[in-house]
């Protein structure tokens, strides 16, 4: 026998897989490359320049949208992570309780209901509140983002809690620590990689949201993604590529940090 028989081989699978990886990254790579194009085309290369980054940086609308995106994402991740930590403490490491199924259905609801349906529902509901209170500020977007970020923050925190040993907390309680002290001194130090991972996930999810923001925002409340969506109707310049590249960079950084956090052992 000239060649060992490889039992895991399937004809053509490797070819398709490699094609798949190439096709998955080719558009992104081109998007990044042409953000550095000195010409206005996204297909004809005219040399390297930072021109489009500079023009995006100096664009007032982009600046405003960036700040707004960050403010919303920070609030939404703080609120959703706090809620998720409390919810995870209530639903993990306990016996099955009455209403458990309903609670899980509620928490996971934003993952199951199509985004466009949630977006429309929020448009209707918030329009009612806007009419009756006259308030049109950022709070609507922050609350909406907080809601759909909860399941994303909840999952890594819950996973972390499930892997934690209850006996340490019981020992602390036996030594007359108050429940709050047990949480702060015993639970929290073990839980933080999960909390950080959940908060980061919520942050990225909020930062990337298009559909719900597009329907909930009042006039002049564009975030970076909805600004880009509006720009796509016009003539596209590599300025959009430059913004995309920055957002892509943020996502990659967060994914890698998230993966590293997941590997931290108890």
């Amino acid at each position, binding site marked *: 026998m000239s060649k060992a028989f490889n039992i895991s081989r399937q004809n053509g699978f490797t070819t398709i897989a490699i094609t798949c990886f190439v096709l*998955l990254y080719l558009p992104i790579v081109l*998007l990044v490359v042409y953000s550095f194009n000195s010409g206005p085309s996204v297909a004809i290369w005219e040399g390297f320049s930072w021109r489009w980054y500079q023009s995006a940086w100096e664009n007032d609308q982009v600046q405003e949208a960036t700040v707004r995106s960050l403010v919303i994402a920070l609030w939404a991740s703080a609120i959703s992570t706090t809620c998720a930590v409390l919810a995870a403490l209530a639903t993990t490491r306990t016996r099955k309780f009455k209403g458990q199924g309903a609670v899980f259905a*509620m928490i996971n609801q934003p993952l199951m209901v199509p*985004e466009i349906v949630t977006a429309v529902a929020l448009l209707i509901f918030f329009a009612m509140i806007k009419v009756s209170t006259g308030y049109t500020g950022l709070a609507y977007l922050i609350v909406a983002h907080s809601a759909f970020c909860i399941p994303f923050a909840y999952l890594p925190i819950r996973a972390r809690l499930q892997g934690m040993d209850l006996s340490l907390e019981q020992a602390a309680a036996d030594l007359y620590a108050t429940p709050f002290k047990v949480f702060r001194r015993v639970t929290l130090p073990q839980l933080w990689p999960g909390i950080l991972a959940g908060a980061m996930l919520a942050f990225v999810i909020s930062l990337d949201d298009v559909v719900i923001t597009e329907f909930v925002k009042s006039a002049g409340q564009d975030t970076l993604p909805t600004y880009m969506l509006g720009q796509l109707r016009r003539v596209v310049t590599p300025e959009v590529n430059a913004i995309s590249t920055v957002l892509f960079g943020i996502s990659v950084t967060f994914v890698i940090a998230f993966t590293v956090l997941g590997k931290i052992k108890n």
Partner: protein
Amino acid sequence: MADLSSAAETQASRRRWLLLAPALFILVFAAAGPLLITLVYSFLTPGDYGGVEWQASWQAWFNVFMERDIFDDTLGWSDAHLSIFWRSVKLSLMTTVLCLFFGFPTAYFIATRPKKQRDLWMLLIIIPFWTNLLIRTFAVVELIRAEGTVNTLLIWLGIIDSPIHMLFTEFSILLGMVYVYLPLMVLPLYASMERLDFSLVEAGYDLYATRLKVLRRVILPLVKPGVIAGSILVFVPSLGAYVTPRVMGGGNQLMIGNLIELQFGQGRNWPLGAALSITLLAIVMVALMAYVRAAGNQEPHRV
């Protein structure tokens, strides 16, 4: 003693609901509650300038699939809506099949790498998954638009004289959806393939099965839960897709999501938009329940 333990039980339960309160409040306020209001709106009369009149009506539900002819007042199927529903279902099914075609070998490829390499390959799948959907859609647009990379390259090579019209067609929506939802197929497939017991594959070969036979009779039945999970994970968001058909379809090739948006914009028919949303939600729920049932039936057969 019994009193004491039941008192402790009550206290634990109160503590639990107190901890759950903030999350449940936000979810009721900004997710579940608005859905109920949407349901109510679907039974109201549209206002002249958007919004609703508080007058009960079945009209919106009637208009989801039917319409009354403006000239002779006869009842008929709403061709426009039916064709959009049909396009949505058709494109979502095609997206699912294509994602399976590309995703299955990819997941298999990753699962058969040495253990240390697998995480790195998976990271390559996860990065696009966490990248803004709009950015990824936009990246494909740049590739296929008239003055985009593909057309420029083909013209430069002298293969074509004028750009091929690819954007704003059903093909471009399909391409975009396969591209953005592919990671959703690979993730669950990989999860079930990683646990695949290759001694069973080896046993198949020992019994003189061909590679194709091993794939069909040994591997496929074992990773079936992953195939079902991946298909649902791709099919459900495809059906409710809004951004990809808007950017890739350019307003000509609507899907359900765009039809819903239309009712809240130019259409000024909020009740119809609400009824269409509830219809989409109902279809998605049926698909999810079918999945739960299929996954439940699968359990006892797993090795």
